[in-house]
């Protein structure tokens, strides 16, 4: 058999694009049943936060409203990235999908990128529903701009990559436990749905180093204009994004 030249050189850009599109399509059709279910889950979650949590606070200030509205978006993004994506990738790992993907003639970065695109798209219904719920319930103003969209996309990518890292590196049980802790911490205790000055300073400092509160702060600053834009928050988010990407890449490139 003649060994074709393209086995030895990088594939031409057109082939690369086709191959990447092939990966995305494959991922899409594999998850086609799950994605609508996830969209519904996010819709319910958004309504639960905006309408349900508001019931616990009868006299809400404007600040409370902004925290709850921005918090609904952030928690939806965390739920998709760190919980749903993590669980699906963990199941894929157990079913041998990840091992099979490792044998395909594609760059590991493309495998990660294709899944990031799918899961980021999957969290869009939640973001939209949170925005609709917030504006209809609280009549808040939204400032949709390139910067607010960029921040939301950045938050989505970071959370999805964290979810991938958890799924790739942890056992199924450890991953399930971690995602529950993230979700309970994010939903109940972290200053995402309420101002940070209500918790001890030391705890605020810890939350500032984790990606969840900075993501929430950035969304509140850009989409609601309710706080100054913090470059430190952006830096923390980017550091988590980079670390989670590196961990995912390492997991897919790892050879036993």
């Amino acid at each position, binding site marked *: 058999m*003649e060994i074709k030249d393209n086995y030895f050189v990088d594939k031409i850009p057109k082939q690369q694009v*086709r191959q990447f599109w092939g990966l995305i399509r*494959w991922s899409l059709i594999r998850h086609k049943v799950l994605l609508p279910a996830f969209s519904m889950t996010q819709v319910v979650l958004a309504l639960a936060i905006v309408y349900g949590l508001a019931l616990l606070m009868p006299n809400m200030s404007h600040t409370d409203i902004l925290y709850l509205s921005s918090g609904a978006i952030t928690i939806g993004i965390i739920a998709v990235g760190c919980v749903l994506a993590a669980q699906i990738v963990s199941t894929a790992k157990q079913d041998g999908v990840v091992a099979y993907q490792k044998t395909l*003639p594609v760059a590991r970065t493309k495998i990660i990128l294709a899944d990031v695109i799918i899961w980021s798209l999957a969290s869009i219904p939640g973001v939209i529903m949170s925005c609709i719920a917030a504006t209809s319930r609280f009549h808040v103003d939204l400032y949709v701009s390139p910067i607010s969209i960029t921040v939301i996309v950045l938050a989505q990518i970071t959370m999805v990559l964290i979810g991938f890292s958890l799924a790739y590196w942890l056992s199924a049980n450890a991953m399930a436990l971690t995602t529950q802790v993230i979700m309970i911490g994010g939903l109940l205790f972290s200053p995402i749905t309420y101002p940070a000055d209500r918790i001890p300073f030391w705890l605020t400092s810890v939350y500032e180093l984790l990606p969840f509160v900075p993501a929430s702060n950035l969304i509140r600053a850009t989409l609601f204009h309710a706080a100054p834009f913090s470059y430190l928050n952006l830096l923390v988010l980017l550091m988590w994004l980079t670390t989670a990407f590196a961990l995912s890449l390492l997991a897919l490139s790892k050879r036993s």
Partner: protein
Amino acid sequence: MNATLNIYSVTKTFNHHKVIANDNISTQFLPGEVTALTGHNGAGKSTLLNQIMGTVKPNRGSITFSGHSLAQEPAFARNVISMMPQLHAPIAGVTLRQAISAIARIRGAHGRALRTEVDKILDTLHMNEWADMPGEKLSGGLRRLTSFAMTVVRPSPILLFDEPTNDVDPVRRKLLWQCLRKLALQGHIVIVVTHNLLEVEQYADRYLFMHHGRLIKDEQVNILSHDRLSSAVLTINAKHAFKNNELPQADRIVTSDEFQYDLFLKADDMTDAVSWLSAKVATEEIRNYRLSPASLNDVYGGLTDGNKR
């Protein structure tokens, strides 16, 4: 360029060198040849495949193809190798056709050529009837065939198969092996892990036999067939016990049940054994007997003494 796959002194250990999966393996795989990799469970066959694929890194030794090290250049390995895993390929949630098309697309096929290639492999394996059925509804054998089709659609120069015929019905097993033969004739290197020795004898050109991580046989299948025909097994059920010195000369005697004896005979022993048998049948000391060529399983067992260390 007709490239061979060279494996030189490959050693792989696990669990801090406590488990030796591959022990100093050296061999060569040629284009145009269907090579069967056989051996007991845990003999190190899949580990060897995974090292060729580049997903497992050898502790020592080299695996080269066309001037490239597959062990050190996993990206190159992925471009020149297609592998059918021991587990089913992921097809839950997708139809058989979608699964095969997805892999063909990832391997660079598109448009009409992609459809033609997918239809061709569906025809070859007689799978059109199930082409649009979701993967989770397929039987184990059809899933295995789908996994096979995903490996051979738009085939790479090196094709690795880990137990491809498990669960597959006899008719399609034949089709599958014919497909492998065709690929070999097109110049692909075809390596198949299998426990089915009858299929090895029927369809493979060469077989490698691994035992406890070591390669203990590497020869053409026709030599194996010759070995088989130059030996025989005489199984007798006697009415009373025989001492070993009362039995005819044999290479090996196995007492498998009370008064049942398996005598592994070489060509030179057969005449004496048949005479002895005739005499014992005449004196009604033997209830029944069977004389047959040594099965591949006997050859296999003889090489390894079961799977004991």
